[in-house]
Structures are given as structure tokens and as C-alpha cells.
């Protein structure tokens, strides 16, 4: 595409649509915008010229690149836009001005961020995703959602400022503000790494994810699940490919959420943990850094966005109809929600990487890349996590919601627009996972849009070998067999109401308490403490006064005002500095 239109970042189309939607009270118009904007943006993306700076600007002495498409940004933006379209369909039933507009702006910001060639504009969209997405959490309207949203916002704004600050530090060190591959070492780079780590849910920085996502609205969670973390994955793939520490970080990320997920009762929270675990696979692959591994990360991100949206959509439908996603209150819903059940099972099969589903063709790329690079332990951890994924997303989610113990709930089937959206996502999950019987279809299509599609290892990669199918089926069927056995002997831990502690207890209980405590100490007890301090130092105070107060304003000396004491303390300090520092 040429001319002015070709220089517009497709994300801006969505942001603009979001702005207009924010000012439009008519539901139909907003629906039209939500559907049309991703389509227009998709067209713009597909016709965009690759590997050139399409829109640049120089501001405040920085060379900014607003729009640049290459293989890596293409596949992420493509997945984002498809998800945006599906989300628009999924949300057709609801009439919420603020959610529509914020959702569109949020999706647009994520898309736009993919095309940024410099850290300043990346920062702007990075923060925009945080600020707009938090409304999807607030819109639930509960106090829990509000507080979780504030925690979410705090961490994400911190991530943004760390990014900006790291980039500035880097700029002052190197004079280059462009987004490029970096090596850890410079403190600025470390800050950027940390900023990406917060958004990507690195261990100990991950708490916001399972905290906030389950508290968002029905449609909000679906939107949230697709963008924020995958934007971080994109940025990691762009900036830190081959950073070996990521292999281990990723491997740990795949393992620990599995344990949280198994005891968690809220099924949307289970999905959030599972999201965190899937991110681990991508982070690990990025750490390997070979073209095959990066292809694996990108392919996995693509299919992950689809099946994770699908799973969240099915749980959203359950929440919409029954008002809860707690495993203890659900069960037996397949009787009245058969289509939702089918779609959920397709999502479950995809995330568990059954052959013929998208997870199978995408995850195997990363797994092979990790194995080729010779990382035995991380590879075994990933394999362990693959069985874990099957446990919490493949079995637990559909089993406890739709089968299992009958809850007696008989809700209606999900609204048609939800089914349509789920159907579309399910179609992609299956379509991408099929064997390439006709060249260019099935997994071949996915592999052809990968960032390093011409890498010989990727071109020669064939997921559907008898060997691979057999081993994968061994892994999955034996794991399911374990489930059946454990259920029969009653060793499967029952679902119980309650919440599961995470590392965020550190700041939700202790940190918040400490901040509140110190706040009240400072405002309430502070004067008293100063008073005690004052009486202790009043002797010294009087002496100083006698010496230094010729005007006699303070000569009476009984001024037990805390601030007067502070004045003297500071004066003493200044005198000490003035006298003794040489």
C-alpha cells in the first residue's frame, strides 16, 4: 500500500475507533466500530511493506519509528487483530460504552506497540495498554476487582516507567534509542529486562496475572488474556533473543503455576495460572534464541492466543449464565450448554497439544529447539509441565465445569454471538493443527508466516511423524490414565472453597500493612515521637538557642513543637557539615 494510508500504524485505527466508541452512546454504532476496525487494520497490515520504516518522526532529538513491519511483528499483530475481531463478536451482546472503548483502545495499543521501532513510542503504547486495560477489570464493579485493578495498574505503570528509564539510561550510554537486540550488563538494559519481566509474568513478578484476570468482566478477561502478556513475549523475542537466563526463567515459569492451578477453585484463576505456564514455554524458547526456537515461540504465541481466548470465552459463557466459575459450584453443565462444552473441549485439546490441534504443531517446535540446544533439565521441566497443562487446562477445566459432580444448575446455552466467537476460535485451533495434506494448509500455513520461515530447520520440520505422534500420545494418554486411576481410588484432591496464597501475600498483607502502619505512624504517632525526641533534645535545643538566637524569639525555650526540633536538628546537621567536611 502506498501513500499516506500506508504510513498509518494499524493499531491507531483501533485506538481511534476506541475514542469514537467512547463518545458514542448508540450500541449498534459501537458494535460496527468494534467489528470494522480490526478488519480495516488487518487489510492495512496485510498490504504493508515489510522491513522498512514506514512512519518516522524526530521529536526532542530522538529518532522515533512509529511503524515498521517485519516477520516478528507481523505474526504477533496478525494474532492480535484476529483476536480483536473474535473478541468483538464475543462482546456483541453487551452494552457498555466504557468497556467497548477501553477494550478497543487497549487492543489498538498492543497492536501499535508491535510496530514501534524506538523505545519512546514503545513506552507510550506500553503504558496505554496498562491504563486502558485496567478499566476492563474495574468494570466488574466489585471492591475486590477495584483493588486488584489498582494493584495491576501499579505494577504495570511501574513496568512502563522502568522501560522508559532503562531506555533513557541506555540512550545516555549509547546514544541509540531504537528497539534492538540487547545484551544484559548495562543497568539500563537490566531495567528493560525487568520491565518486560513484569509484563511477561516472570516468577515473583507474576502475581498480578492470577490476581487481576479472574476479577475482570466476562468479556474483559477474554480481551486481557490475549494481549498484555503476548506483547511482553513479542518484546522479549525482539530485545533478548538468546539470553540464556531466559531458558531457566521460562522453565521455572512452566512448572510452578501447575501446582497452584491444581489446588485453585476458581476456574478462571486456573486458566490464568495456565496462561502463566504457557508463557514459560515461549520465554524458554526465546532464551534458546535459535531461529527454530524463535519460530517456536512465535508459533506458540499465535496458537496460544487462539486457544487461550477460546478457553476463557467458554468460562466466560459459564460465568455469564451461572454467575460463578468456582469449581465447587459447577458441574454437569454439558446438559444444557453442549456447544460451549464442545468448544471448551477443543480448546482443552489444543492447549494439551493433542495431535490434530494447534498446540501440537506449535509447542513441538519449541520443545525440539530446547532439546537440540542440549538443555536436558529445562527440557524435562517443559515435558513435566506439558503433563501439568493437561491436568489443569485439559481435564480440570472441562471436567469440573461441564461434567463431574452434577451441580443441578441448568442454565441456557451461551448467547449466539458467544458461540459464534468460540466457533471461530475453535476453527482456527483445529485448522492450524491439521496435517498439511494440501501444501499451504494446516500447520503449513502457520509455519509459513513465522518470522524465520526460511530457516532450513523450520522448513524441514515435520510435526506429524509417527515417532512424534506416538510419544505425544504416550505422554497424554498415560497422564489421563493417571487421572482415571486417581479418581477411582479417591486420591484426587477434592475441590474446596478458599483462596490459594501466592507470593503476592508479601505485599498484599505485609507490604500494605507496613505502608499503612508507617503512614499512620508518621501522621499520628509522628508528633508524639517528635515530642519524646523533643524532650530528650530540649536541653541541647536550649543551649543552641542561647548561643544562636540573638533576637530572642526562641529564648523562652518551651516550644515543644515537633517542627522546631526538626529545625534545630537540621541546623545542627548543616553546621556539622559546614564545620567538619573538608
Amino acid at each position, binding site marked *: 500500500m502506498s501513500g499516506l494510508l500506508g504510513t498509518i500504524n494499524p493499531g491507531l485505527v483501533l485506538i481511534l475507533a476506541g475514542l469514537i466508541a467512547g463518545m458514542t452512546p448508540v450500541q449498534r454504532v459501537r458494535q460496527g466500530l468494534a467489528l470494522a476496525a480490526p478488519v480495516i487494520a488487518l487489510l492495512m497490515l496485510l498490504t504493508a511493506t515489510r522491513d522498512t520504516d514506514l512512519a518516522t518522526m524526530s521529536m526532542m532529538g530522538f529518532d522515533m519509528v512509529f511503524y515498521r513491519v517485519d516477520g516478528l511483528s507481523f505474526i504477533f499483530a496478525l494474532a492480535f487483530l484476529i483476536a480483536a475481531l473474535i473478541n468483538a463478536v464475543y462482546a456483541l451482546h453487551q452494552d457498555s460504552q466504557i468497556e467497548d472503548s477501553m477494550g478497543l483502545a487497549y487492543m489498538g495499543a498492543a497492536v501499535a506497540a508491535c510496530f514501534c521501532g524506538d523505545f519512546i513510542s514503545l513506552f507510550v503504547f506500553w503504558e496505554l495498554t496498562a491504563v486502558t486495560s485496567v478499566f476492563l477489570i474495574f468494570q466488574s464493579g466489585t471492591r475486590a476487582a477495584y483493588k486488584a485493578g489498582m494493584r495491576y495498574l501499579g505494577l504495570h505503570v511501574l513496568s512502563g516507567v522502568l522501560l522508559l528509564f532503562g531506555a533513557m539510561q541506555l540512550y545516555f550510554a549509547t546514544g541509540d534509542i531504537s528497539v534492538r537486540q540487547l545484551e544484559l550488563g548495562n543497568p539500563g538494559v537490566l531495567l528493560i529486562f525487568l520491565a518486560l519481566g513484569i509484563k511477561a509474568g516472570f516468577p515473583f513478578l507474576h502475581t498480578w496475572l492470577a490476581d487481576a484476570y479472574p476479577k475482570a*468482566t466476562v468479556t474483559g478477561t477474554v480481551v486481557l488474556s490475549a494481549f498484555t502478556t503476548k506483547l511482553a513475549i513479542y518484546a522479549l523475542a525482539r530485545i533478548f533473543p538468546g539470553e540464556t537466563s531466559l531458558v531457566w526463567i521460562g522453565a521455572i515459569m512452566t512448572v510452578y503455576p501447575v501446582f497452584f492451578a491444581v489446588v485453585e477453585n476458581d476456574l478462571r484463576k486456573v486458566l490464568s495460572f495456565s496462561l502463566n505456564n504457557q508463557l514459560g514455554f515461549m520465554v524458554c524458547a526465546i532464551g534458546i534464541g535459535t531461529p527454530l526456537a524463535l519460530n517456536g515461540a512465535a508459533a506458540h504465541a499465535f496458537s496460544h492466543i487462539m486457544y487461550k481466548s477460546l478457553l476463557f470465552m467458554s468460562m466466560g459463557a459459564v460465568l455469564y449464565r451461572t454467575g460463578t466459575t468456582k469449581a465447587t459450584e459447577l458441574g454437569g453443565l454439558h446438559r*444444557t450448554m453442549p456447544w460451549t*462444552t464442545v468448544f471448551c473441549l477443543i480448546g482443552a485439546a489444543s492447549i494439551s497439544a493433542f495431535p490434530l490441534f494447534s498446540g501440537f504443531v506449535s509447542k513441538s517446535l519449541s520443545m525440539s529447539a530446547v532439546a537440540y540446544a542440549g538443555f536436558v533439565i529445562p527440557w524435562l521441566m517443559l515435558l513435566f509441565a506439558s503433563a501439568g497443562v493437561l491436568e489443569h487446562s485439559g481435564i480440570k477445566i472441562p471436567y469440573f465445569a461441564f461434567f463431574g459432580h452434577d451441580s443441578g444448575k441448568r442454565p441456557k446455552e451461551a448467547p449466539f454471538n458467544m458461540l459464534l466467537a468460540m466457533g471461530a476460535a475453535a476453527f482456527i485451533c483445529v485448522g492450524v493443527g491439521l496435517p498439511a495434506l494440501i501444501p499451504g494448509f494446516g500447520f503449513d500455513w502457520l509455519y509459513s508466516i513465522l518470522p524465520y520461515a526460511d530457516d532450513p530447520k523450520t522448513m524441514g520440520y515435520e510435526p506429524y511423524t509417527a515417532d512424534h505422534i506416538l510419544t505425544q500420545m504416550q505422554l497424554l*494418554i498415560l497422564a489421563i*490414565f493417571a*487421572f482415571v486411576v486417581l479418581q477411582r481410588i*479417591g486420591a484426587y484432591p477434592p475441590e474446596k472453597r478458599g483462596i490459594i496464597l501466592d507470593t503476592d501475600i508479601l505485599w498484599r498483607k505485609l507490604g500494605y500493612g507496613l505502608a499503612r502502619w508507617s503512614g499512620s505512624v508518621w501522621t499520628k504517632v509522628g508528633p508524639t515521637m517528635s515530642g519524646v525526641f523533643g524532650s530528650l533534645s530540649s536541653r541541647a535545643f536550649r543551649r543552641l538557642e542561647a548561643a544562636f538566637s540573638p533576637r530572642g524569639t526562641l529564648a523562652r525555650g518551651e516550644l515543644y513543637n515537633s517542627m522546631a526540633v526538626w529545625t534545630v536538628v537540621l541546623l545542627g546537621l548543616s553546621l556539622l557539615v559546614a564545620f567538619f567536611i573538608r
Partner: protein
Amino acid sequence: MSDSTKPPHLSDHGEHALPDDSHTRPTAKLLFGWTSKPWTGRLLFILFAVASLGLILVEPLLEMAAGEGHHFRHAYFNIDAITGFYAWWGFGSFALVVLAGWPLGRLMRREEDYYDDESEPAGEEPHP
């Protein structure tokens, strides 16, 4: 619902009353009707036991069929060259994860009002 510690359904050997199926939609009966039959648990157990055994046993057979000097399996490391490695690893991992749920649940589960805001219901009113 109830906090029954009894695992539902699969351990249900048919001695409980069957759930009410009067609202069940025809599509659902067609697709998933079999899951609420009394024999489902036993059937699934047998089915998966057979499938598991078959998947493990087929490996040495295929390996033999590949002939001398060729390998059916392309192992990355030494450890995964063991016959049925994926099967054992999958079974073991799954069992470990699930069994870890018992102590972990006891260790990390708290009352729903632990953070004084979590106990609230989800923000969504049901639209049945």
C-alpha cells in the same frame, strides 16, 4: 454447593441416584449422554488402561519393524531413549502434580475472606 470430600462421579459406582436429565438438550444427549451412564467410570478406566498398555507395547514392535541399523524413535538425549519414556514421564508427572495437591491445599488454602475482599462474588449477575 456442598464441601463433600468425596470425589464425584468417576468413583460413583452407580449406587447414587442419577442426575435429573429432564432439561438436557437433545444435542447434549447425543454428544455427551454416555458420560452420565452408570457404567461410564468403569468403561473409561478399562478403555484408558487398554490404550495405555497398547501405546507402550507398540513402541518396541515399531522399533523392531524399523529394522537393523534404523531407529523408529529419534531420541534427543539418553534419558528419553528409554522405552516408553514419555509414557512413564507423563504418568509420573501427572500423579505427582495431583498428589501434591493434598499437602499444598492444606498449606496454602485460606478462608475466602483472607484478604477481606476476595470473598465477594464475581461481578457478573447470572443471565440464566
